[in-house]
């Protein structure tokens, strides 16, 4: 209130309103609350942390690249990568200080830079190798822009195998996943012990990736070499699907509304009836959605696990890669994109109709 009165009296003329502030020197404009400044001491500490990180990077460096800094008479030198890291850290702290970011947030950002540097340095991550090996790459890249379309239609039966593997694995895997999810969620399971046991079993199933399951089943029952590729593939995808569906659906059941479940209990329904009547209808949209998602995953995953010796288009892809027939590989990859997009559109369409 007082600020308005002041600006009015200083402007001298009534009715200038908002314009007063900008027409004056700018000092006379309304006083705004100042953003609190972060603690300078904490920023000094962060600076120390950056210096310590720089020292550590210098000490632990493996690359021998060195930058020379001519400074008048003397020339300083510093190892290239740690120096770049230091500059990034200092720049970050300066920006954070200027926009008055709190010390905890600045610490987080600094830590992010340090950890990223450390991880990248450990594995010698650099995009420079792409340039160094460009001659090798150029030919293959050219092939990728020139796919062999006549080839891709010649292997349509392999595509069919992939699709069928995905369908069978999805249907069986999701059904088993549904049952496991019912036992895993404390809402629908008979007792806590069952729920915990099934959850633990589930974690084990999920901790093995799809390629891991494929290798396991190929080793146990034999892969394409024995004509059993699709079987191993379906089994691998199945385990993969059970893990995903049981996890996602279990959590959906956890969140099911307790009212209808209590109502079903109050009618004297047994556990199976209660789960069928009150839990299943609530989670059915989620279940359908997860199943379609899993189907998409299966198409993609079956290509990847084909490389380790289960049937389908992945197997064909592997063969063509071993023959360095990059035009054929390219056509398979393009086709894969199209198929996955189609499946995606299809599942979107179904989901829309179901909701």
């Amino acid at each position, binding site marked *: 209130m007082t600020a308005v009165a002041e600006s009015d009296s200083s402007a001298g003329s009534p009715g200038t309103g908002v314009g007063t502030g900008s027409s004056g020197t700018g000092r006379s404009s309304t006083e705004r609350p100042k953003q609190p400044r972060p603690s300078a001491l904490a920023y000094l500490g962060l600076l120390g942390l950056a210096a310590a990180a720089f020292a550590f990077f210098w000490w632990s460096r493996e690359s021998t690249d060195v930058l020379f800094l001519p400074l008048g008479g003397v020339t300083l030198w510093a190892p290239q990568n740690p120096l770049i890291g230091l500059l990034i850290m200092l720049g970050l702290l300066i920006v954070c200080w200027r926009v008055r970011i709190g010390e905890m947030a600045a610490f987080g950002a600094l830590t992010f830079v340090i950890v990223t540097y450390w991880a990248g340095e450990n594995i010698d991550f650099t995009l420079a190798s792409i340039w160094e090996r460009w001659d090798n790459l150029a030919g293959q890249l050219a092939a990728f822009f020139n796919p062999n379309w006549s080839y891709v239609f010649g292997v349509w039966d392999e595509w069919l195998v992939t699709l069928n593997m995905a369908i069978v694995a999805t249907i069986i895997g999701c059904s088993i996943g549904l049952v496991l999810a019912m036992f895993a969620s404390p809402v629908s399971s008979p007792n806590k012990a069952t729920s915990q046991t099934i959850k633990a079993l589930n974690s084990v199933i999920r901790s093995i990736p799809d390629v891991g399951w494929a290798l396991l089943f190929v080793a146990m029952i034999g892969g394409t070499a024995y004509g059993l590729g699709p079987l191993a593939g379906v089994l691998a995808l199945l385990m993969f699907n059970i893990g995903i569906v049981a996890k996602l659906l279990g959590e959906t059941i956890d969140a099911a509304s307790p009212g209808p479940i*209590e*109502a079903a*209990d*109050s009618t*004297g*329904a047994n556990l199976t009836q209660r789960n069928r*009547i*009150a839990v299943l209808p609530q989670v059915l949209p989620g279940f359908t959605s997860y199943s379609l998602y899993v189907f998409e995953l299966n198409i993609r995953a079956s290509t990847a696990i084909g490389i380790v010796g289960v049937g389908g288009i992945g197997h064909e892809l592997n063969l063509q890669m071993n023959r360095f027939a990059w035009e054929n590989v390219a056509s398979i990859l393009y086709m894969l994109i199209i198929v996955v997009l189609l499946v995606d559109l299809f599942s979107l369409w179904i989901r829309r109709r179901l909701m």
Partner: protein
Amino acid sequence: MITFENVDVVFPNGFQGLKGIDLTINQGEFVGIVGLSGAGKSTLIRAVNGLVPYTSGSLSVGETVVDPKSKTKLRRLRSKVGMIFQSFNLVNRISVLNNVLTGRSAYTPTWRSMLGWYRAADKELAFQCLERVGIVEKAYERASSLSGGQQQRVAIARVLAQDPEVMLADEPVAALDPPTAHRVMRDLRRIQRELGMTCIVNMHHLDLARSYADRIIGMRAGEVVFDGPVAEATDAVIEEVYQRSMTAEDVVADDVPVSVEETADATEHDPDNDDAHHDDDPAVLGSDDPGSNDPGSNNAEQARL
């Protein structure tokens, strides 16, 4: 007949929900339970069908002793004790008829429930129950497409499908607007008379309890502090149960137009924080018995309004 003998309920967290309840509720009685929230009304009702297990004493419905430890016995008991809820608790995504058929679960083999393949006789019964609550034409609509009053009727039909001896109702009309609340209560009362069921209803609103119940039980802090016919449940008695004077919130606002002004009045005076003002303003008291109340608690009530 429902008999409570010295029934205690202690929750796993140590909170005592019910303390030494002794009650006998006769066959065919319509009992309204009143009390502030947290008084143990819901716990009392849920103890009857074992949704909340009682921890000591003895509780029986008819000849059957409620045994929270045996799931089988509980299921057999629950098949004869229906329950309706404040939030209706229908399964929203299935049809009204299927919701009603849920009430037949205890009499239906599991495989039939699994397939949703109910007996023709059960379906006929479900239709009769829907007829009784007057929404048979909605049978194949999704439960979620119905209005609140209609959903509560479906819930009542679901209980009727159980062919129950006892009906429990936990705040059955608290989520409904006043005219609908009265209509649902009237239906409930009519059906209860027609079938001769025992009915125990928790009610937030005192006037509903007075208009529809035969007998009123007042609860406070897990104990029964009043038990008597409606005629005895005067305002003074209920204020004793509530341990405070009554306000407009304690009655359904249906035929109490004064309540709107009251609320406006309270909000108007609130910022002034002028406590003394309320004392000489009898209009702000929802109760028609202004003599018996203590001004201090009044002001607290008004501030809350």
